[in-house]
């Protein structure tokens, strides 16, 4: 037997279905994000861990110029080392028939007759290499797919100055190259960077490394001290040209996925609570209204002998039903959306598999927290039930009390007509609620402004970097530091307008215990193609007597202009330099450190050496020029700016970067939700007054003014506040999104604020229209006959 109260509950829910579903939906979105992001986070972490373990990704990478294979056992004896393997790696240039510019590639050796001890590869297609056939390679699957290559096709690659033809026998993936980036570049791009796996013998022959390795891979025992092992390895490799071993934290592909995971973690910790807070606010308002409307029924129930607790339980059930309903829907949608997103991430990161794993206990807790926090809003209202006495059922309702709200000043009152006074007094009678509505809309709008602002920031970063900081069209890198006569060779080529050489040196920056593995870039003192820019956007000249440091780097190392930085060079003679910091630059991409080219060469005692050059070319001669450059044996790679720019945009629009679009959409939804609900609630609360106005002969328009005027003022106040909140959020979010890889300038375009203002106004207009329609349809007679 269903109790009459439960039947009332069912009917109340049905009657308020629009509002109930709206609130449940807000809760659902919050829970959806919680489940989806939580699941995704969990899955990414677990998949990464499992992929790394299954394919035995090394914990330490130790590149060296050339070291005998016998060092394997020496490294193996370092306390804490699990297993060690050596390999040959090198840069290669792939010549694709349909592309003028050569594509950079990394050639990596695989042991000839055994499984790799560390850094195994996942064979996605084809077969394993046959060490007896020296021209066989496995190709990175992402690159192969981007160029329609597969087992059976062949490619031409230039290694160490020699051009060779290879047969592709397999397509592979590796945890080492989840995201692949050409050396010296920041932007991962499937199409522009390849990894070639070859038999050790074949690659050693190509790079003149027979009997030797140029990279050691080391795994650590559980609980080993990574720092100590790295130091020990560095000491062993030093005589052989070790350039400094580094851990996974400095491994490029791992940095990217770690950044992405941590951005996802930040979003999943901050976004869902916003939804739950909004839901709690809405539930508070709606239940509060319901109890006001049910006042007489509550009085009657009490008169019949129902206990206050029993009546409270009735309303609490309503709250719980909405909250649980929303949460369950959110869970279901969250699992679904999480799986979709996981599939996307799997493709993006090229995981051979993705364990979409939802931690049930965590979800249960999340759902309980959501239900509790969302229903807290409604619970707050239940105290009203306690305050009601049975006698209220017998009395006509008292009019809402306006005598105690803040009075409007007399001079203001004189200038206002009655409808305007009604609007203002309604706003001031419940200042808390008005402020909450204003704040809610302002925060929603602020979020939109901030997201648009961050998009502005991305655009500005791309624009600044690719047109102001870097004014070259192409960047040629050489296979190793060479005499600068190659620059004159480049300059003489037909179509080359300007050439600026650079020298790139692998170093470790140190300040006390703080350190950063990176590179020191040598530029000419007044570069035109590649410049360092100050905060204000002025060119910073490159100095001979000091280093120009990127702000991120200065912050990381806690140094400023005038301080002295220790630089351990990891190449050549490997000197340790003590160099003063001349000034701080604000690069948008990467974390560079610049010094005058000649000065670096003097410090390294390698005069006249360069690593490559920035070129400004006549695009008309682009293709023929790239073909010529491709054929220069000393060239390791050419990167074309427009391609980098495109790849960079793609990168920004995928992975965690894509969440800013989702967030902008969500912000718009929240804003509209609050605007519409404010209008809706104001309408229900005042429909009685509105009907009275209509009866007194006020037209639909005049009547609507009383209601929509309130909404208008709320919006009017929310707009500047929202812009302000947006401005503050842009700064915070820009910093949150900025990493060592790129920094988002916190700029705000007037247009973004404009868009947000227009969209909030549109939301208001639409809500106003929907409510106005209801005002026009007001049932005059029934509204007046009812006591509420």
């Amino acid at each position: 037997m269903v109790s009459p109260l439960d039947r009332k509950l069912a009917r109340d829910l049905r009657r308020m279905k629009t509002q109930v579903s709206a609130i449940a939906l807000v809760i659902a979105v919050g829970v959806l994000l919680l489940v989806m992001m939580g699941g995704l986070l969990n899955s990414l972490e677990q998949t990464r861990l499992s992929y790394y373990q299954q394919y035995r990704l090394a914990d330490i990478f130790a590149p060296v110029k050339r070291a005998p294979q016998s060092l394997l056992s020496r490294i193996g004896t370092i306390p804490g080392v699990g297993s060690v393997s050596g390999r040959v790696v090198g840069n290669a240039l792939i010549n694709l028939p349909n592309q003028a510019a050569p594509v950079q590639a990394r050639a990596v050796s695989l042991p000839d007759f055994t499984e790799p001890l560390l850094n195994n590869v996942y064979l996605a297609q084809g077969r394993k290499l046959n060490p007896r056939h020296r021209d066989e390679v496995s190709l990175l699957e992402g690159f192969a797919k981007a160029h329609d290559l597969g087992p059976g096709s062949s490619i031409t690659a230039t290694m160490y100055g020699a051009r060779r033809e290879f047969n592709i026998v397999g397509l592979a993936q590796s945890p080492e190259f989840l995201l692949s980036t050409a050396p010296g570049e920041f932007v991962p791009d499937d199409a522009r960077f390849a990894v070639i796996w070859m038999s050790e013998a074949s690659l050693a022959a190509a790079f003149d490394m027979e009997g030797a390795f140029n990279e050691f891979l080391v795994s650590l025992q559980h609980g080993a001290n990574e720092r100590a092992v790295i130091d020990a390895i560095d000491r062993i490799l030093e005589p052989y040209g070790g350039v400094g071993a580094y851990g996974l934290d400095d491994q490029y592909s791992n940095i990217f996925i770690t950044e992405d995971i941590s951005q996802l973690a930040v979003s999943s910790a901050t976004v869902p609570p916003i939804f739950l807070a909004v839901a709690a606010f809405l539930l508070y308002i709606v239940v509060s209204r319901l109890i006001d409307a049910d006042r007489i029924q509550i009085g009657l129930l009490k008169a019949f002998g129902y206990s206050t607790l029993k009546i409270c339980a009735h309303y609490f059930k309503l709250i719980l039903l909405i909250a649980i309903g929303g949460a369950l829907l959110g869970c279901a949608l969250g699992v679904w959306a999480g799986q979709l997103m996981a599939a996307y991430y799997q493709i993006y990161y090229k995981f051979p598999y993705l364990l979409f794993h939802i931690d049930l206990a965590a979800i249960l807790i999340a759902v309980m927290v959501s239900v509790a926090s969302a229903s807290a809003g409604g619970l707050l209202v239940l105290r009203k039930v306690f305050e009601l006495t049975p006698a209220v059922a017998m009395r006509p309702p008292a009019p809402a009390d306006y005598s105690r709200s803040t009075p409007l000043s007399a001079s203001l009152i004189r200038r206002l007509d009655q409808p305007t006074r009604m609007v203002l007094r309604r706003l001031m009678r419940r200042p808390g609620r008005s402020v909450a509505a204003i704040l809610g809309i302002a925060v929603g709008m602020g979020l939109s402004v901030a997201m648009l602002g961050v998009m502005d920031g991305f655009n500005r970063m791309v624009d600044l970097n690719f047109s102001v900081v870097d004014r070259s069209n192409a960047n040629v890198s050489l296979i190793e530091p060479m005499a600068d006569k190659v620059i004159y060779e480049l300059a003489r080529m037909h179509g080359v307008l300007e050439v600026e050489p650079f020298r790139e040196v692998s170093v470790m920056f140190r300040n006390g215990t703080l350190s950063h593995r990176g590179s020191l870039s040598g530029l000419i003192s007044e570069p035109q193609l590649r410049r360092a820019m100050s905060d204000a956007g002025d060119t910073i000249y490159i100095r001979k007597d000091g280093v120009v440091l990127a702000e991120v780097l200065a912050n990381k190392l806690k140094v400023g202009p005038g301080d002295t930085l220790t630089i351990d060079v990891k190449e050549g003679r490997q000197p340790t330099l003590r160099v003063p910091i001349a000034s701080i630059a604000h690069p948008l991409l990467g974390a560079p450190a610049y010094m005058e080219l000649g000065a670096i060469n003097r410090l390294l005692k390698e005069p006249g050496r360069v690593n490559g050059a920035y070129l400004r070319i006549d695009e008309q001669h682009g293709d023929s020029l790239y073909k010529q450059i491709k054929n220069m044996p000393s060239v390791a790679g050419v990167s074309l700016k427009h391609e980098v720019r495109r790849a960079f945009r793609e990168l920004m629009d995928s992975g965690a970067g894509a969440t800013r679009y989702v967030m902008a959409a969500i912000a718009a939804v929240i804003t509209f939700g609050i605007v519409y609900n404010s209008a809706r609630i104001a309408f229900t609360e005042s429909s009685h007054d509105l009907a009275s106005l209509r009866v007194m002969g006020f037209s639909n328009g005049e009547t609507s003014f009383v209601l929509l005027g309130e909404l208008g003022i709320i919006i009017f106040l929310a707009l500047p506040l929202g812009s302000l909140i947006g401005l503050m959020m842009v700064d915070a979010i820009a910093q949150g999104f900025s990493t060592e890889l790129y920094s988002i300038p916190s700029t705000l375009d007037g247009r973004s604020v404009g868009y947000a203002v227009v969209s909030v106004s549109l939301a208001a207009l639409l809500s106003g229209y929907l409510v106005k329609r209801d005002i026009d349809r007001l049932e005059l007679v029934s509204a007046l006959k009812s006591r509420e």
Partner: protein
Amino acid sequence: MANNLFDQLTLYGMATDKDAFSVTGVTKVYGEGPGAVHALRGVDLALPSGEMVVLLGASGSGKSTLLNILGGLDSVSAGVVYFFGKELTAMSPAELTLYRRHHVGFVFQFYNLMPSLTASENVELVTEVSDQALDAEEALELVGLADRKNHFPSELSGGEQQRVAIARAVAKRPTVLFCDEPTGALDSATGRQVLRVLQDINEHFGTTVMLITHAAATADMAHRVIEMADGAVRAVRINEHRLDAENIEW
């Protein structure tokens, strides 16, 4: 022309030789099919201007429906209603709004004051939009509440709220004042006070007053008493001797 008609009608003290309302064959059906409710089943009436009319009848007899139709709040299912010769049942919603704005005052059982406006502001709400309204203070004085003009509804008693509602309804000098159970929520002393005000308005301004009530005794103060039952007019009687509101038995 509607405008001309309204211009004429808004002139105070209009000719009374024409009936204020002439009602012919009005029926009102709510809903459809077997569940349909026949609220009015062919009502014919002629109501002269300037009278105090009391509508009597049990719940569901159709008196409120009739009053709402005459007040321009509800439409008819069939039949015609004329207001000083102008067909009310043919007016557009916008024309009905103007009709209510300029000619009709309403007083309801539950007052329907704007809680956010003070007593005088509630009255001004109406006077601001009508052409030859009374001063708000004057109107409040009529109902004996001039000293309470700056109070909000929440600070007034039920009787006071109802008198403010009446002041608001008469301040625009309506041609007709419709009152649906104006004393329904009031005690006898306050109720008589309210009826006194209505009688004064009828006598001093010549406003046609239509009053719905359950209390049969109230009928003794009317010029004309219309008894309704089952959606039809059962009897219309004219009082030869009218009682003052003070002398009505409660």
